[in-house]
């Protein structure tokens, strides 16, 4: 093996090791996990997955998560599109300040907002709803989406807009049939990042839900029973949470590279 491959190989090895360990654990019994060190499952079992796929409190956790994450992605991208267009195409009073202020929303820790959100949601009836969590996550994702989309939109020359108007396109028609297809990789990248941030965010999602909209990550913290931690079950649930992210990454992998090239991701 050539020298230059060594670092890459070592990097990938260390990167994959915890993931391998998680997957391997999910096929072990809790007894074996606690029993000692084993590289492969000695006693291969699908019992952990069976529990998750048959117990509604478990699989509803996934549905809840996927539901509010999707809702959040749709809200964030559709709200950010017109905002990013305005930032990219027009000069108005305080535009640069407003743009920066949007970004500062991402700088505050989620914990700061947890209590006000909880209080507000309890008052208006958004507590423990998918929409509630999706809206709370929009606080972080809308600025991010505006930031990324603005980069992609500014990469499109203004002459494209002008050409379309000259050709007779009205603004809405131009935006939907010309502009959006032109920046579709930007929309893909934005959707991916919104999805990811909402998918891994735990604090707000946990604070603002009780039963009906409880995310999978919150349910996982409940595996502590009188018999101790059910580690095998926890590992299986963890493995399953990786899958949606992996699927989304697969679809936008080429666009992400483009996003990095644009310098906004």
């Amino acid at each position, binding site marked *: 093996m050539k020298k230059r491959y060594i670092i890459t190989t070592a990097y990938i090895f260390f990167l994959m090791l915890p993931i391998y360990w998680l997957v391997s654990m999910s096929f072990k019994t809790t007894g074996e996990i606690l029993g000692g060190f084993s590289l492969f499952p000695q006693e291969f079992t699908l019992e952990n997955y069976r529990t998750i796929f048959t117990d509604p409190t478990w699989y509803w956790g996934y549905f809840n998560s996927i539901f509010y994450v999707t809702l959040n992605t749709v809200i964030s991208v559709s709200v950010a599109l017109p905002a990013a267009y305005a930032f990219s195409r027009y000069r108005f009073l305080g535009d640069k300040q407003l743009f920066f202020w949007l970004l500062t929303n991402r700088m505050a820790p989620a914990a700061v907002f947890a209590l006000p959100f909880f209080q507000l949601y309890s008052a208006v009836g958004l507590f423990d709803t998918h929409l509630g969590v999706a809206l709370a996550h929009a606080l972080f994702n809308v600025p991010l989406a505006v930031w990324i989309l603005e980069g992609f939109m500014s990469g499109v020359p203004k002459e494209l807009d*002008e*050409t*379309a*108007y*000259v*050709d*007779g*396109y009205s603004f809405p028609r131009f935006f939907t049939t*010309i502009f959006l*297809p032109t920046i579709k990789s930007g929309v893909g990248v934005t959707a991916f990042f919104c999805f990811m941030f909402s998918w891994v965010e735990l604090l707000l999602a946990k604070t603002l839900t009780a039963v009906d909209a409880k995310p999978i990550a919150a349910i996982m913290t409940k595996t502590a029973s009188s018999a101790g931690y059910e580690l095998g079950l926890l590992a299986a649930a963890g493995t399953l949470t990786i899958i949606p992210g992996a699927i989304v990454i697969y679809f936008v992998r080429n666009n992400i590279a483009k996003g990095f090239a644009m310098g906004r991701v």
Partner: protein
Amino acid sequence: MAFEIKNITKKVDGQTHIKPTSLILEAGHFNVLLGETGAGKTSLIKLMAGLDRVASGQILMNGQDITRLSTQKRNISLVHQFFVNYAHMTVFDNIASPLKVAGMAKSEIAGRVEEAADILQLRPFLARRPHELSGGQQQRCALARAIAKESNAIFLDEPLANLDYKLREELREQLPELFAGRGAVVVYATSEPEEALLLGGKTVLMNDGRVTQFGTTAEIYRNPLDITSAKVFSDPPINTATVTKKGAEVVLNGTIKWALDGDAANLRDGDYAMAIRPNDVAPLRTSQSTVGVTGQVQVTELSGSESSAHFSFGAQKWVSLAHGVHIYDIGQPREFFLDPSKCFYFGADGMLAARG
């Protein structure tokens, strides 16, 4: 078809970009907007296209006021310097797009697109995407989109500037026949005087947001109205110097003298700004009437059939442009010969006072 603008102005952030401008542009010939980068050509086109709002003034098309009419409703075409095409559409759909928006029948669209594609030799590429074409083909696609639509006015904003030399020559030759007989007002912006001369028609000289002269291209090349127009319509830059007229003679730098005749002889005595085109300053004596000027050769360029030399004498930095290959020694003094009959004399107000 005629396009008329009356006293239009344009302001950006309190700064005047287009000073009061009035023009009548007609169909049947090229209307070339000639000026340096930043002279306001693109600004003027945007105003005429309705992409920008005028601060004051009126725009008329065939006598109808269209000042407040939106771009979409003006029925015009526009080709930018950069190749602007719709990246996600095929070439066919690109050319067809204005027709589709206008709600034309499918069968008619196909006929029009194919006609435009044939003229611009795009027929083999109709199924491709713009990014699969070369730069010249992409710009031809944009041109095809502009001519497929039967518009009232076609604006071409330096359409050839981003193409390489060969393609530029090729397309420039095609342009006049492309728009001939279409009945549309053709406005062509360029920063190259040579291009204006090659395209013919009428030329609008622009400088610093102002129209300095407007007329038949050959006419305004021969008779610049003022010194700015003379400068705009000359490449390489026109040679200028301050001369003093006394009696029947003018004196340049105290020592170089020549006799005046014709118009110039009747000028009042005093200082004038003199200008002469580089191709009227020759490296060899061609006739007895030419006047010798000795200058230090600084830079020389050889471009195919022409040789140019930049030389300085006194406070002047001049250029000589001559046919054929001439060898100059850089840093050495050399005598150049100006033709007094080709001189322009401008008064203190910058207006043309007399020709040599």
